[in-house]
């Protein structure tokens, strides 16, 4: 039995190809059952996001070879379309890849944490569909743990990587907690709405929206519920004094927020700090306003600078993240290899117990006058001898299994445990059926 990986991602396939293999959560159980029934996989899980489609499956070599035809048959995509986009892996390669994905190393936005939730969801669906068992259970559990560990022990997931979250980071350094602060949006564009939403999600309370077309301002304000209020365009200079954070994103050809507007607003707001985010090009806010006391004007380049610095920080964390992943892969390999030794260990322990029981029985039959206590002592003695004799070979078997040594087979032969192999194969074929 081997662990197989087959997939494509934003790194290997354009969106036109990725969308053909995209599967929503409602279709995943069907695809998983198809993999089991048609491709003959014992275990299977599918990770399908907007940036990747990956199959993790456990099966024999023949099933592994059928994996690619699954894509053709289930998705009705010609094999030649996918040929150059697919990557494949087995055993440790597959585990390493999933650990990297869980750590955000393979993500479009380095270190993003959304992928961890998507992996959890893929695992949950596979479990509910009954296609995840011993190997995939352990693989996904370890991948999720690895993703969490990399984010705890390194800074791969730290720092804002979008204009919206960079604005929140800055606003928090000016105001502390954002609860109760007012946001004024100038221009009802998508970008300003998204930035304002990030601020509201972080605790900002009241949202004022000013737009040249009042209806659009009302529409956007309605998105923020009872805390959203539309403001007439001519009134925005007066409203500046009520706002703590101003987001400007209009298509005006020049500065619509003059330094004099800001100075007047500062006087009215008794010089409480004012944070102005200018994401328009050309700029909406006069940069001279930044020189006023307690006024902080950040334009799109400044915010992009914050994002770039954070990204550079994350990139610097890569060597540490890689070393965490490698240590997790090593642990996984030990567990994975040790699986091969487990039936042999169980058989050896069983054989030991059989011999002990038969010998104790024969001995006790020759000593009928023993009291109950003396009989218990004989049984304990036999158990102790069995334990001491088997301790070293069992430990050696476990270590041999973890390192992938051929000693497992040698010990199997030495203790005449060959039949366990056959039993094991029989169990596997039953499970597959």
């Amino acid at each position, binding site marked *: 039995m081997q662990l197989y990986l087959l997939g494509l991602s934003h790194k290997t396939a354009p969106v036109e190809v990725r969308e053909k293999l995209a599967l929503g959560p409602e279709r995943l159980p069907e695809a998983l059952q198809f993999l089991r029934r048609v491709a003959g996989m014992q275990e299977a899980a599918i990770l399908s996001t907007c940036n990747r489609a990956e199959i993790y499956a456990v099966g024999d070599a023949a099933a592994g070879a059928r994996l690619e035809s699954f894509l053709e048959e289930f998705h009705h995509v010609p094999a030649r379309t996918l040929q150059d986009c697919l990557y494949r892996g087995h055993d440790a390669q597959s585990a390493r890849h999933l650990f990297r994905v869980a750590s955000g190393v393979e993500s479009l936005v380095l270190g993003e944490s959304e992928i961890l939730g998507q992996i959890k969801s893929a695992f949950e669906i596979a479990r509910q569909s009954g296609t995840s068992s011993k190997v995939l259970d352990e693989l996904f559990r370890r991948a999720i743990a690895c993703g969490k560990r990399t984010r705890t022990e390194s*800074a791969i997931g730290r720092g804002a990587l979008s204009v919206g979250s960079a604005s929140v980071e800055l606003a928090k*350094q*000016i*105001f502390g907690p954002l609860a109760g602060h007012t946001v004024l949006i100038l221009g009802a564009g998508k970008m300003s709405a998204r930035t304002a939403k990030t601020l509201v999600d972080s605790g900002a309370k009241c949202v004022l929206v000013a737009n040249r077309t009042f209806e659009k301002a009302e529409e956007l304000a309605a998105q923020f519920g009872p805390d959203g209020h539309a403001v007439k365009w001519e009134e925005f200079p007066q409203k500046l004094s009520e706002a703590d954070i101003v987001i400007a994103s209009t298509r005006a050809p020049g500065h619509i927020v003059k330094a004099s507007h800001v100075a007047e607003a500062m006087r009215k707001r008794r*010089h409480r700090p004012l944070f102005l985010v200018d994401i328009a090009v050309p700029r909406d806010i006069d940069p001279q306003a930044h020189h006023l006391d*307690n006024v902080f004007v950040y334009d799109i380049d400044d915010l992009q600078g914050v994002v770039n610095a954070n990204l550079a920080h994350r990139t610097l964390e890569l060597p*540490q993240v890689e070393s965490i992943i490698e240590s997790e892969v090593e642990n996984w390999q030990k567990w994975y290899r040790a699986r091969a030794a487990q039936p042999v260990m169980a058989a050896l322990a069983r054989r030991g117990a059989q011999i002990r029981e038969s010998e104790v029985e024969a001995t006790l039959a020759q000593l009928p006058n023993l009291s109950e206590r003396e009989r218990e002592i004989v049984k304990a003695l036999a158990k102790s001898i069995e334990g001491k004799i088997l301790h070293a070979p069992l430990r050696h078997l476990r270590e041999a299994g973890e390192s992938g040594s051929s000693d497992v087979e040698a010990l199997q032969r030495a203790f005449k445990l060959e039949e366990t192999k056959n039993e094991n194969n029989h169990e596997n074929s039953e499970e597959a059926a």
Partner: protein
Amino acid sequence: MEFLARNENLFLTGAIVAYLVAMIGFWIQLFMRADDDSPRAERWHARAALWGRALLCLGVVTHAFSLVGQGSALLIVRAGFAGIFGWGLALAYLLCGPKLKRDSMGAFVTPVTLLAAFYSLTAEPLHSGARSDLLKMQWTPIHVTIIILAYVGLAFAFASALIYLIQETLLKRKKLTGLWQRLPSLQVADDLIYRATVFGSALLVLGLLTGVAGMAQQPGYQPMRDPKVLVSMFSWFPFALYLIARWWLGWRGRSTNLVVIYGFLILVISFLGAPHVISGQ
């Protein structure tokens, strides 16, 4: 008691060493690897801050032995006053620091503590002989306690104002390195400055009044001709200016917080220079 009195200088020297190492710990926590915000660096910074706090605790305990050893005379000797102030400031930081949830304040408070303790070790006890009769007056401990609390409050305002200025400069220059995230937000620093200044300046007035009330019991005393009263009023003026600007004009931010910094420096200069003014040097 006798043992403490005999070894007061030794205890004070020990406290100074502890304060110095604590200060280095807090500086390492704040300024070293400022660009690194990884969990590794965070653990490293947390360890440095922990060492800083532990040594500050040790300094406070050792310093307390020294103060007890100095006896009640330290209440009227300038060097003694500086010693109690430094000790009180360190103790206040240890008590309030966890509530502020910012170790960064330690980097600004410990140097003031260290300088005060160092001054108390090296300064000449200028008035110990001349004004020993003050000890007999009941109001002296009350007056000194109030003034020390006022100084501690204003020292906190000074430290917060320094933090505010650094944070504001980073935000204005758009130099958003690791240091800016380790400092409190502008709003938090501004609130601290305001509260500490209100507390400190109110107690400074109260201390001045208790001082004048006590001295007024002496026949022929005229407060407005007492250089000590005049110097105290002069050093109180910048804080009054700050509060007036904030209450009536609504000013806040860089320039008003600079007034607090100048105010504390004037307070220190007045404290060091008052004896010379009084003795007519």
